[in-house]
């Protein structure tokens, strides 16, 4: 085998190696992009869609975007104000921990319900579940990306 053929062999392998270097560079850029996307996605963790609200405040059809901690109640200092005669001033807290949602009842007079079941203390909540506070019904939905 002469030098030329060996050289040719090396160049061919170099071509394939460089092709994979190119792919590697792209994949690294893609992974970086995905990582950035997961980190910047903290803007909105979930949405709370108002399904029924006899008093009209909050209005039906509105969707609130949720932070990690959301307080609900009749008091104006709550993050979501529920102006309903059957809601307590500080009624419940919705929290996002890890990958799951939890609702905690703050000893409200008329109770907090998840899919019709009264919450004792803290209850887990999934996307699509219905939360009832006073006469207001709200549905937890996935964050819009």
């Amino acid at each position, binding site marked *: 085998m002469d030098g030329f053929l060996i050289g040719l062999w090396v*160049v061919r392998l170099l071509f394939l190696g460089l092709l*994979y270097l190119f792919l590697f*560079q792209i994949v690294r850029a893609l992974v970086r992009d995905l990582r950035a996307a997961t980190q910047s996605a903290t803007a909105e963790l979930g949405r709370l869609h108002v399904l029924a609200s006899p008093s009209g405040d909050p209005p039906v*059809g509105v969707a609130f975007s949720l932070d990690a901690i959301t307080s609900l109640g009749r008091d104006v200092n709550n993050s979501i104000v529920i102006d309903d005669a059957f809601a307590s001033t500080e009624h419940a807290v919705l929290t996002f921990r890890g990958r799951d949602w939890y609702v905690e009842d703050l000893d409200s007079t008329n109770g907090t319900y998840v899919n019709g079941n009264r919450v004792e203390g803290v209850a887990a909540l999934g996307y699509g579940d219905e939360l009832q506070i006073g006469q207001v019904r709200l549905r937890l939905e996935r964050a819009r990306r």
Partner: protein
Amino acid sequence: MTASARSRPAPALPRILGQIRPRPRWLELRLLVLVAIVLVVGSASLGATVRGRPDAGADLFDPSVWLPLDVTALAIYLGALFAAHAAQVLAGRRTDQVLLPAVGMLGGISLLLMQRLPQDLVGSGFFGAEGLGQVQLVWLLLSVAVATTVGIVVRSDSWLRQYKYTWAAAGIALLLLTFVFGSDVGGQRLTLVIGPFSGQPSELLKVILVIFLAGYLSENRALLVEQDTRLGPIRLPPIPYLVPMAAMWAIALGIVVVQRDLGAALLFFGVFLLLLYAATARISLVIGGLIAFFLGSAVLATLFEHIGTRIAIWLDPFADPLGAGYQVVQSLHAFARGGLLGMGLGNGLPMIGGRVTIPEVHTDFPLAALGEELGLIGVLGVLGIYLVIIERGLRIGAAAADDFRSLLATGLALVVGIQAFIIAAGNLKVLPLTGVTLPFISYGGSSLLVNGLVIGLLLALSDKGVEPPPPPRKRRLDRILRRGAP
């Protein structure tokens, strides 16, 4: 924390051309430099193989041996890629930076392959271009130009969104035109010849299909998901919404029958089902659609001879290795000769005794040629680039502002990906062989231009927030139904 449900973003301010600031695209530039290096090395290996062959004792240290095979063609192609990069930098849009290098790499590999295949596979040249390599170079340049222009110029999607039924009508008209006036090439009625121009409408049709489906599904998504018609234990969407799906199924099978094009039918129906799944997340629809398609195809395969032949070849090409199964057998041999690392660019066997070993190698079997010359490693690398393009499309779709853009980007990426998968599987005898092209690598003007258009649209869609999507329109079908209901 505010109620953000129906709040509409303020309309975008009109842009004055002078205000556009150049925006550097370092990632794209870095990747393009890498593309250039890869292609120069590949071209050098091709050139050395071709020049070194007649006299085995070529000198290792003679620089003229290591020149690329066609220096001007390579320089023009790389120049076009960097020009496209410069144009996007000057335009200053924040579009995707990975798509152009990925497509540029595929196009460059295509250029090397076409330069290396027998040049007389293509009959007539144009624009002073002669032979396979040069004609392909012209199409590649036009394709890059289309992608860049669309990626820079398109800032609004309302022309796609609002006229989806018009687009669908145009697509069906195109299809019918091919049915009636198309000319048969190799048993398939795919080519439409109008005066001096000839093209394959099914290439353009796939883009129109994606636009229509994205528009239709984004408008009717909620209804498709929420309402049910119960048929015993099976949950189906409301009957009126099933009609378009049945129509799609009929059109796909119609393409099989009239155009004898199993590949396009598979591509259209596959994209349709995947978009349906992306929009509704109902796997039952996809499974039902697949079963309907395969049942329909099975019936057609028994009724029509040409489809049956294709399937027979697929099941056992070695039954008639010199006749019907010749292409597939030669393709398998080519992959086998390539082995792990391949025989090197320019070292395959495109001709035996003045005859091309794989007929239609430049359009239908470029992957087999690559498999022979670059081996398993090279083929996997090329398929990896397709995966990158799909990933970019899905990411653009996931980050899009609304359903229409999301589905459009997803569909455009999938249409390229599924097409590459179908023809790669056909070359490898995993699926019956069909006449679709390998995107960005196969020879052919329609294919390259349309895929350039796809990349251009993806680039335009990847720019966030130039113009907010319009507020959701009242669903037309819903309105009609409500009016009709008591």
